[in-house]
């Protein structure tokens, strides 16, 4: 089918059925690579479960008086999971995919946990991933707004003032080289000591991560008009403000959206990191921490996937807004 597709596409514009066929083909063309990659990743994951969980599988089997090799527990202690799996293939495979606190839970276990945490719980429950996701998302969005506003403001300053150009950019870069995990507790402690807690400290950490891509992208975008575009404004005797609103800002929109997509993902990471050091009881970060505290690996993975899904939704939404706005501006990308 695939090798006849280019031929068929020639006539596909004719008539309605042709258009439907073209749509279906475009869809399957887009879907096929995605499905292939996902299938490959799942296969690797399942395979990895066997050695990762081998020592536990073998231990359970030994307790149930199934013959395992080596026989003595002290001999097994120093062995890698891979070596155990190779020496006890049947036992390792049989026990790999349904352990309670598996070192690496299998995909279907994580999926079940995700399902239970979203559909299986009322959203008001503190076991609901939707509720925890919302706690993290609200901090993410607030921080994203802070970061975006700050980033745009800095970019405007950098583009219009030589002093800011020379002074701000190096500090912005330095700020991103400091590990966020090191600063986050300090931010939270300092803010707590002045009576600020809850969503704001997390949002500030989000903003700290998300302003940077916005600054970089907006500086580039605001400087993207070429010499002639700027000369035209000069011939009208336009003020700096008019040049900004009527030329620099519209020119920067494609750059802004590219930055916003990176920024929202960084914001989410910031919010999650902000939930780790406080021993917070709510949010995906808190779920991660609690999961690792009690060895609930399924809970950790479910929270990780919830975070990834959240990020994908945010980036996707920005993409939709981008296409609508740039389309309206006649700047189809």
């Amino acid at each position, binding site marked *: 089918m695939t090798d006849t597709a280019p031929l068929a596409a020639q006539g596909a514009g004719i008539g309605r059925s042709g258009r439907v066929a073209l749509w279906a083909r475009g869809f399957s063309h887009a879907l096929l690579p995605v499905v292939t990659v996902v299938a490959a990743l799942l296969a690797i994951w399942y395979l990895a479960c066997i050695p990762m969980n081998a020592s536990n599988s073998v231990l359970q089997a030994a307790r149930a008086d199934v013959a395992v090799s080596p026989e003595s527990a002290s001999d097994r202690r120093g062995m890698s999971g891979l070596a155990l799996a190779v020496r006890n293939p049947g036992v390792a495979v049989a026990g790999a995919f349904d352990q309670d606190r598996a070192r690496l839970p299998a995909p279907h276990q994580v999926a079940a946990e995700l399902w239970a945490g979203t559909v299986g719980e009322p959203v008001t429950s503190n076991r609901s991933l939707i509720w925890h996701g919302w706690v993290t998302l609200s901090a993410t969005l607030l921080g994203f707004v802070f970061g975006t506003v700050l980033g745009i403001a800095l970019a405007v300053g950098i583009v219009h003032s030589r002093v800011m150009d020379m002074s701000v950019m190096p500090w912005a870069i330095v700020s991103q080289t400091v590990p966020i995990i090191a600063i986050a507790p300090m931010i939270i402690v300092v803010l707590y000591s002045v009576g600020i807690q809850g969503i704001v400290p997390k949002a500030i950490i989000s903003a700290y991560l998300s302003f940077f891509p916005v600054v970089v992208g907006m500086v580039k975008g605001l400087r993207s008009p070429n010499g*002639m*575009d700027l*000369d*035209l*404004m*000069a*011939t*009208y*005797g*336009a003020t700096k403000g*008019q040049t900004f609103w*009527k*030329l620099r800002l*519209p*020119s920067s*929109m494609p750059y802004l959206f590219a930055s916003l997509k990176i920024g929202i993902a960084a914001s989410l990471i910031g919010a999650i990191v902000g939930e780790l050091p406080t021993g917070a009881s709510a949010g995906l970060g808190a779920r991660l921490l609690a999961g690792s505290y009690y060895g609930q690996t399924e809970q950790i993975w479910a929270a990780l996937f919830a975070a990834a899904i959240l990020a994908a939704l945010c980036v996707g939404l920005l993409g939709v807004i981008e296409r609508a706005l740039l389309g309206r*501006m*006649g*700047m189809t990308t």
Partner: protein
Amino acid sequence: MSPVISAKSLNLTFQTNDGPVHALKDVNLDVEKGEFVSFIGPSGCGKTTFLRCVAGLEAPTGGTLTVNGMTPDEARRARAYGYVFQAAGLYPWRTIGGNIRLPLEIMGYSEAEKRKRVTDTLALVDLDGFEKKYPWQLSGGMQQRASIARALSFDAEILLMDEPFGALDEIVRDRLNEELLSLWARTEKTMLFVTHSIPEAVYLSTKIVVMSPRPGRISDVIDSPLPKERPLDIRDSREFIEIAHRVRDGLRAGMEAA
């Protein structure tokens, strides 16, 4: 009456990585109010550079230049001129109407005035009905006409045009030449017009400035004896052909001297 534009021993040297480029050397030129001056000369002889100096977009390295008795920069801020660039340079996120509206917005025209002027100038360049289209939906020549409309939409005493009709076909070019002449007669604007076409220069101008390259300089200034009223078939008259000859000789002499 003092000239609208006055250049005295104007010099401009660009410092480039390959050493200095002498784009304008000892340029002396007076343009009176209401004149139509064409600049003609081989590529790289400094026509664009001279126009940019008049517009205050380029700073001369020597000599003096006044526009309306002011420095070019003051004249620029006083919105003394409209400028048509060699390329159309429409803003892609604005419709054709929006592009023509741009200078009107910046100069603070009233809403009704904006609407009227957009419609009028679009009709002038034969683009009625394209107001809502985006630049990429128009051909290169149509974009160029839109950029002319943009420069004509506001009231400036001086119009600086850098090869505005270079991208157009012969027929449209003839029509726009006629339009430009009647606009000029009506408004008594002062025109500075760059072209590569000898007939176009002779047909339009009251004064033809012939330039030659390396270094860019004026090699001849020809005052046209043609009447102000110019039907298209004036191009077959003896006077017209004689002036055209003189322009061609000037161009050739400039090339040989270089």
